[in-house]
C-alpha cells in the first residue's frame, strides 16, 4: 500500500513538562514556538511506518496547562489519539494529566492515548511511584517512560500510539489492490 494515511494526534500536559522539547528533535515543522503562546497550538508533522503502512502524523502541540489556563479541548476535535505528558520528577503533573484525560474523554470520547512520563534520566529526583503507574496500567492505560534529553523512548511512544490508532481505526480497504 503506497498511499500515505494522515492522522491527527495531540500532545497534552502541564506547563513545563517538556512536551515541546520532547518532540522537537523528532518532528518536522515550519512554525515557531511562539505559536504556542499566541494561538495556543503549534503543528508539526512526523512520518512513521506501521507495518507496511506509511502514516503521516500531524502533531498538534497544545499549550501547557497550568493553574490559570486549561487546555483548549476544541483543538482535540478530530484527533485520532493523544499523548498525556507528565514529568516524572514532579508528581503534581500526573494529577493534571489525569484531569486533562477526563476532559478529553468528555470532548472527543474514548480514543487511543499514551501516558508519557518524561525526564526518565532524572531518576534521583523521581517523584512518581511505580505502584501508581502500575495501577494505571492495570486500568488499561498505555504508559511510556521517555527522556527528551537522551531521546530515549520517543520513537517508541509514537509507534505505541499509532499502532493503537491503526488497530482501532483500520483503513476502509485494508486489502487494497495488492
Amino acid at each position, binding site marked *: 500500500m503506497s*498511499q*500515505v*494515511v*494522515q*492522522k*491527527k494526534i495531540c500532545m497534552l500536559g502541564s506547563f513545563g513538562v517538556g512536551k515541546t522539547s520532547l518532540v522537537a528533535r523528532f518532528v518536522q*515543522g*515550519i*512554525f515557531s514556538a511562539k*505559536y504556542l503562546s499566541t*494561538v*495556543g*497550538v503549534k*503543528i*508539526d*508533522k512526523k512520518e512513521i511506518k506501521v507495518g507496511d503502512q506509511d*502514516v*503521516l502524523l*500531524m502533531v*498538534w502541540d497544545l499549550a501547557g496547562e497550568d493553574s490559570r489556563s486549561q487546555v*483548549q479541548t*476544541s*483543538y482535540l*476535535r*478530530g*484527533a*485520532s489519539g493523544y499523548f498525556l505528558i507528565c514529568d516524572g520528577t514532579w508528581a503534581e503533573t500526573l494529577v493534571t494529566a489525569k484531569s486533562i484525560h477526563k476532559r478529553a474523554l468528555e470532548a472527543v470520547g474514548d480514543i487511543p492515548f499514551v501516558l508519557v512520563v518524561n525526564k526518565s534520566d532524572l531518576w534521583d529526583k523521581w517523584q512518581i511511584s511505580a505502584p501508581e503507574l502500575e495501577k494505571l496500567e492495570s486500568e488499561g492505560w498505555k504508559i511510556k517512560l521517555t527522556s527528551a534529553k537522551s531521546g530515549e523512548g520517543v520513537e517508541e511512544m509514537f509507534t505505541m500510539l499509532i499502532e493503537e490508532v491503526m488497530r482501532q*481505526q483500520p*483503513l*476502509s480497504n485494508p486489502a487494497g489492490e495488492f
Partner: protein
Amino acid sequence: MASKPADLKRDSEFDHRPDELAELRALLLGQQIVELQELHKRLDDPNVRAAELSQVLAKAVALSLKRDRELQRSFYPIVEQALQISVARNPRLLATSLAPIIGESVRKAVANAFRSMAENINIMLERSLSFESMKWRFEALRTGKSYGEIALLRSLRYKVQQVFLIHRETGLVLQHISVQGEGVSEAELVSGMLTAIQDFVRDSFTSQHSQDLETMQAGEFLIWVHHGPQALLAGTILGTPPPELRNVFARENELIHQEFAAALASFNGDASAFDAARPHLQNCLLGQTGRPKKQSWWLVGALAFVVLALVAFGALLHRRNSRWEQYLTRLSNQPGIVVTGAERSWGHYWVWGMRDPLSPDPLQLAAESGIPAASLEARFMPYQSLDEHFQRERDFAAEKRRLEQQMVLFPVNSSVLTPDQSIRIDNIEESLNKMQETADKLGHQTKVVLSGRADHTGAETKNTALSEQRAQHVYDALRERGIPSDMISAVGLGDSEPIRHGSAAYQLEVNRSVTLKVQSQAQGERQ
C-alpha cells in the same frame, strides 16, 4: 528634668530607685539599650527612614508584583492622576514622547486607506468605462453567463496561488494544488494551522460558535475560506480578487460535498479518495491567465455586418446633414435672402426668412443642393434688399422701363424727325447711356430694338417702307449722338403691329412712331 513641684516631690521619694534600676539595666542589658536607642532614632527620624526605604523599595515592589496584582490596583489611581497633572502642566512632554509611535501608525493607516480607496476607484473606473468591460459585457450576452462571471474569468488583477481542501473535523489536508512553482511543500502543516487558527478565532473572539473565519489578510496576501459542513475550501490569493470569486469557491465546495459525501463522512486519514476532486480545486485556481478565446466566424461576420450597416447609416445621415447645412449656408450667403430659421425632422425641411424678389428662388437652390423640393417648405417675406447689386438691378429695370415708354412721333406720310422729336432723341440717348452703364456693372448684355410703325392709312407696301425709314432715322440720329451700332438695331413693322387699334386721330397718331424694346441677358448665359 520635669519642673512641676508635685512631680518633684514624687521624684525625690523614689529617686534612689531609678538610679538603681538604671544601674541594673545597664548591667544587664548594656549594649542592647544603646542599640534600642539607635533603633528609636531610626524609626523617629523621617529622613533616615526615607533613606532606608529607598534602598528596599524596588525590591519590595518586585516582590509584591510576583505575589499578586494588589500593587497595580493601588497604584493605578495615582498613576492616572499623575499623568493628568503632567499633561495639564506640560502637554508637549507627552506629545513628544508619543509622536514617533502615533505618527508612524497614523501614516500607515492613512496610506492604507488611500491605497484601498485608489484601488476601488481604479477598479470602478476600469470596470465601468474600459473597452475591456464592454468586451466582457458583450461576451456575457453572447455566452449567457453573468457579467460577473466573465469579469472574474478575464480579470487579471488577482491570482489564486494555492487551493486547499481541508477536512473540517481533523484539519487534515484532503487535496492541495498550486500554481506551478509557487506551492508550499508543507501543505499538511499549513492546513492544520489554518484549521487551528479557525478554532482559535472561534473560541476566542466570537460568541457564537457557528461564526467562521472567512478572510485572513497579510499585506497583499489574502486567504479566503469557504466553510462546508465537512470540508473547508481555502485559497491563498495575491492581489484584489473580485467578490465573485467567493461564489466560485462556494460552488466548487458544494459540488465536492455532493460528489464525495460518503468519502467525507468516513474519512480516516486516507486522502487518496479525494484525488478525483482535483478538477474542482483547479477551477478555483483563477486569475493567472485569460482563457483562450473561442470566437466563431459567423459571429465575427454578424458583427462586421452590424458595424457596416451602422457606418452606412451614419454616412447617409451625415450626407443628408451636410447637404442641408450646405444649402442653408448657400441660402444665407445669397444677397437678398435672410434666413431667420430652419428646421429638419425625419426627412422634412423647413426654412423661413425674408427674400428680395430679385434674389434666386430658394426652391430652385434646394434642387441644386440635392434637397428634393417636395420635402422643403420655404416661407419668405418679400423685402427690398439694400444690397448694391439689387439696387443696380432696380436702376436697370427702371431705365429699361423708361426707355420702353419712349416714343418718337412722325407726321403723316413722313419719316423726317421734327425738331420737337429731336429732344426726345436726346432723352433716349441719355437713358440708353445710363442703362448701358448699369448693365455693364451688372454684367448684362443689352440690345435695343428700334421698331418703326406706320398707321394703316395708305398702301401697305408704302407703309412698310415708311416704318423702316422712320426706324432708320432714329437709328441714325442715335448713332450720330455716339450710341454704338452693336447696341441698337432698327426694324420696320409697317402697319401690322399697331400700338393702338382704331381710326381716331389720336389712335392713328401713336401708330406713326418709333418705340424701343430692350433685350437683356446676364453675361455668361447663352445668347
